């Protein structure tokens, strides 16, 4: 096939021949089988090159697609299925924390016993008690929420008494209102009175309830050193904390 022939075929295939030329070209194809074959082969070559181009473009788009997928990996899009995954992760994180906290709770429950009332001796069944006595009676019968209300209703002078503050704090502690308990028990410590050592013990328990381990540990160490109130239990608790 000479170049002139090739150009002629290509011009025909590109529909660039005039209508007369096209008629002549097609007449020649009918008459000359070898020429017809040549034209058909030329068509196939062109189609082949175009299919190849198509395949190359497909590969380019696939690598573009990989790029996009790579970028998507770094962008967090919050779709429902992602939310579900996040929820699962959060739950898995919470379970050990929950176990941890509930263990602290157990420590508190294991060691907390209300301290007996040594302040206002109340005769059981006695009537016409004043608020002061009523408060301690409520404490004795383990009605702690009533006790805290009654302690709160006392006058300022009564509320400043070490005994009142101590049992008031214990009432809060029994109700697991550890923040209020800590507040009261710290006041007791500041007064440096009769209930100081006991207050340390209960304050340590309140800190455990609040998961303030370090504060609890310090108080327990003091108790162990002093060898006084709840010494043995303080030692045990200290070991369990560490």
């Amino acid at each position: 096939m000479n170049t002139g022939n090739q150009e002629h075929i290509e011009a025909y295939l590109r529909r660039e021949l005039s209508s007369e030329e096209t008629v002549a070209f097609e007449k020649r194809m009918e008459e000359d089988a070898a020429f017809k074959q040549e034209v058909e082969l030329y068509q196939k070559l062109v189609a082949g090159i175009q299919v190849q181009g198509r395949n190359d473009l497909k590969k380019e788009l696939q690598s573009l697609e990989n790029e996009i997928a790579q970028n998507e990996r770094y962008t967090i899009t919050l779709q429902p299925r992602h939310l579900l995954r996040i929820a699962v992760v959060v739950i898995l994180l919470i379970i050990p924390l929950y176990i941890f906290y509930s263990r602290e709770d157990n420590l508190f429950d294991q060691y907390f016993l209300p301290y007996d009332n040594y302040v206002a001796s109340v005769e059981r069944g006695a009537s016409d008690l004043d608020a002061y006595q009523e408060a301690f009676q409520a404490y004795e019968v383990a009605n702690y929420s009533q006790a805290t209300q009654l302690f709160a209703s006392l006058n300022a002078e009564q509320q400043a008494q070490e005994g009142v503050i101590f049992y008031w704090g214990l009432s809060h502690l029994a109700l697991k209102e550890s923040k209020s308990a800590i507040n009261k028990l710290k006041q007791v410590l500041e007064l440096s009175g009769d209930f100081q050592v006991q207050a340390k013990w209960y304050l340590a328990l309140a800190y455990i309830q609040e998961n303030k381990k370090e504060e609890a540990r310090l108080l327990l160490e003091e108790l162990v050193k002093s060898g006084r109130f709840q010494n043995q239990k303080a030692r045990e608790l200290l070991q369990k904390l560490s």
Partner: protein
Amino acid sequence: MSTQKRIDEKKLIESLKRGDKQYFNAFYKAGRKEFLSWAKRQYKISKEDAIDIYQNASILLYEKIVDNQVDHLKSSLKTYFYGIAKNLISRYFREGQKEIDHQDNLQEHWMYQNQNEDENSQEVRKLIQDQLSKLGEPCQSILKLFYFENLSMNLIAQRLDYKSAGVAKTQKSRCMQQLKKEVTTQMQLKLNSNSGK
């Protein structure tokens, strides 16, 4: 807003005809997400298949653009693209085929023979593909630039650093001749080995 879009589409068409795929790739990226969720919502097509169809529709769009078929569109290019995609999708459901048919031929300014698909023509097509991939440079590039990307000889000369369009044209003719020679030789060999059996 829509003017902005028109300009982008116009830029896409113009740049692609110069052989610059930058806007085409941007078009691909920009429309991808919307297409995938549309295909999923409308047709329940898996993401993997939808990506395949999106790519094939993009290829067909590419061919229409370089074949000057979208120069006077009344709709937006995007609407036109979705038309192409819908055709691919309906064939996908009809025939289970995602790929572009080799008979979706190809660029309209070319005359193609009526392809009576027999075993022989399949064989010839495969043979041509093999020989094409064996073809070295600059022939691979120049043939692709001319017959697939539909670039002018001027642009091809610029791209491949030829002195003039005429030089590029001569080179292209040589490459075509070489390809034809290789293919004919292979066909002859095949014919001989078949008759020798």
